[in-house]
């Protein structure tokens, strides 16, 4: 396939939802035409445990509709104002992925518009489907660079009867907890299920009144390392007292044990850059979520299989119009 001639910069397109994920991977180029997706629940059959929503629907709305039927979809974005389109495009999973799986495992069907203006459907509306290539998984985490999502069908689950955070020294012993977090001072574990099980599993642990919070700040990122390396990597983020005062500022962090994600926040871009280098030193990387320095886009590392990814990008967005600036691949068309 040949790449069509580069088009007018005025044709840059940036899908926009609630702007809660606006800077993930780096902000889109200035002057891009912003497009919005439909809003609202299009189909919901509780007995099928599937729901189809417009991509502009907020997670808050989605969760409210599902809760009425005792169901949930464990996307768990940082902000409930986030739209389904934004959550899927960025592919940022919530802490309950430990038990419920990452965002990509909740998506059954997607309909999106490609860079060359075709409305494409991928996947299927049923809970199980292997018909054709897995476009839903390709879309999740593509940062809006292969298409603008119109609607998605999501898989739902029964809402747990009881959901309780605990803290204690021995959180690893719980059977398949929903989430496990560690911020350097204490471990927290989220237990879900019927009352007797949650109480039995929580024995010896202390119940928490409120769920732990992820660190916040003007500069934020998300580190990924192999689950076996998460403690070492997180510990390395904490500055030792011996470091000089002129070193970059403090990095606040919270690690998802068993997953390998570490949420980091800092007050200055240099501290975030240091977090990124710690991630690299532990065989991982850091996706920039907010702030950071302009020179420090995306994952801050060479993308693996970049040539293949570029061909995938070209297959859906031959002119390179979609969300330039969000993924380092965009550089090819710059």
């Amino acid at each position, binding site marked *: 396939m040949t790449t069509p001639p580069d088009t007018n910069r005025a044709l840059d397109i940036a899908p926009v939802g609630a702007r809660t994920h606006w800077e993930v991977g780096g902000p889109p180029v200035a002057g891009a035409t912003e497009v919005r997706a439909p809003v609202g629940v299009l189909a919901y059959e509780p007995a099928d445990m599937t729901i189809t929503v417009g991509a502009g629907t907020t997670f808050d709305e989605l969760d409210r509709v599902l809760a009425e039927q005792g169901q949930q979809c464990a996307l768990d974005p940082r902000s409930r104002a986030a739209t389904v389109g934004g959550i899927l495009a960025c592919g940022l999973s919530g802490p309950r992925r430990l038990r419920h799986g990452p965002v990509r495992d909740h998506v059954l069907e997607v309909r999106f518009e490609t860079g060359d203006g075709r409305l494409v*459907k991928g996947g299927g509306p049923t809970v199980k*489907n292997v018909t054709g290539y*897995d476009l839903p998984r390709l879309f999740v985490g593509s940062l809006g660079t292969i298409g603008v999502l119109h609607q998605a069908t999501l898989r739902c689950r029964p809402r747990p009867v009881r959901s309780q955070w605990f803290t204690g020294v021995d959180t690893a012993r719980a059977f398949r907890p929903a989430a496990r977090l560690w911020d350097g001072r204490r471990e927290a574990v989220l237990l879900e*299920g019927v009352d007797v099980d949650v109480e039995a599993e929580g024995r010896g642990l202390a119940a928490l009144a409120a769920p732990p919070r992820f660190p916040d700040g003007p500069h934020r990122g998300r580190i990924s390392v192999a689950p*076996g390396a998460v403690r070492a990597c997180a510990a390395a983020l904490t500055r030792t007292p011996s470091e000089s005062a002129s070193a970059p500022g403090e990095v606040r962090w919270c690690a998802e044990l068993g997953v*390998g994600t570490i949420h980091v926040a800092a007050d200055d871009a240099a501290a975030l850059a240091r977090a990124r280098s710690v991630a690299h030193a532990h065989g991982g990387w850091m996706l920039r979520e907010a702030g950071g320095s302009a020179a420090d886009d995306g994952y801050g590392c060479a993308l693996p299989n970049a040539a293949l*990814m570029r061909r*995938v990008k070209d297959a859906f967005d031959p002119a390179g119009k979609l969300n330039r600036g969000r993924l380092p691949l965009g550089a090819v068309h710059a």
Partner: protein
Amino acid sequence: MTDLRACVGEGRASDEPLELALYARDAGVAVGRADAVCFPGSGAEIAAAVRVARRHGRPFVARGSGTGLAGGSTPLGDPVVIVTTQMNRVLEVDAQTCVAWVEPGVLNLDLSREVAPLGLHYAPDPSSQQACTIGGNVGTNAGGPHCLSEGVTSAHILAVDVVLPDGTEARLGSLAPDAPGYDLRGCFVGSEGTMGIATRIAVRLTPDPPCVATILCAFDSVEAAAATVSGVIAAGVLPAALEMMDARITQAVEDFVGAGYPRDAQAVLLVEVDGLEGGVATQVDAISSVARTNGATLVRVAADDAERALLWKGRKSAFGAIARIAPDYYLHDAVVPRTKLVDVLRRVYEIADAHELIVMNVFHAGDGNLHPLLVFDRREPGIWDRVYAAGTEILDACLDAGGVLTGEHGVGIEKRDLMARMFSVDDLDAQARLRDAFDPDGAANPQKVLPSGSRCGELQRVPDGTWI
């Protein structure tokens, strides 16, 4: 051949007519023709074999145990068949992070057995799990009864080392969550060998549940059983597995295994719930009560592991046991929304009656994943046309109900030409472009998954000597 032998070793490549004939098909119906077959022992040898094939202008087809039912590893276009069965080692197991690296030829059940002493298992459990390979499971994104709560293969594959169609090697995905950039791992899983060959696979292992209960429910009608399925889900219970068998299957299986299924039932449900004790007890109560409300004639909870194993053995032997009542069968695989099960099942029986065929149903009811089996005797003149017509009508009925063409067997060659019934021209074009991004020359498992311009006759016209 000389080049092929040079890269995989003497005695591990063959072009003997007898051996090639045995690789002309898998467990599906379509028959192709292999040009050569080889048995590499490492990822490097697979890469070398792919490069040899490409250098000689040949396509290549990856194959594991050949238990696929959609003809996914049927060799078309005179390819080199690359068989992964000699790469059958579990390379690394990390019990702490529940990850294992395996070679593609490891058998699904062998992996679960190997990690069993650690209190772990590999969750996707296709009915052929004793024989099928993890590599093949990755190719088809295989399912199985326990995928209802745990998800299909793709949810259990963290990373795959692959040989791409141009013969280069790459790692897709990572042990760390969310590999940078596009989810190429997600694209590769379920691509049915059209995007390359897996040489090393990182799978997620699942802790064994502390408590498991298996419930057998019998009903006087298929409708009552199907209504129970919807009722269980509506009651907020997501079982680990929820399987259904109709009267004919139940009897056939009972004759074979003696699993203790009631022979006079019109439909049988096999429901499994697992997890912590309290949750299991609550779910058993909820399921029993829904079943009784729907007029179950029997609700029995397996007393021990032996009875559980026997109940499952019956379910997993279903397809083979059919051969005891009819010489031939044709097995379909479609998914409908769970709420449409009753309507679609009624339609399936009507279609079979209209074509004067016998249909049996055994399937993953909790997923809405139907497996209608049309049984027949191929010696009857014109029978295959009727079977094919009925099969197509059944699939149409599933699509009309908002369903999909295949839930776990894959498209392969069997459903390739039906893809346009589910996808628009633009949808298929997008998929073709994605495939081209991986394999611009169409060298990896050609003529599969996506329809070509001309409709081929592999399915309507079964070559002589083909068996179904």
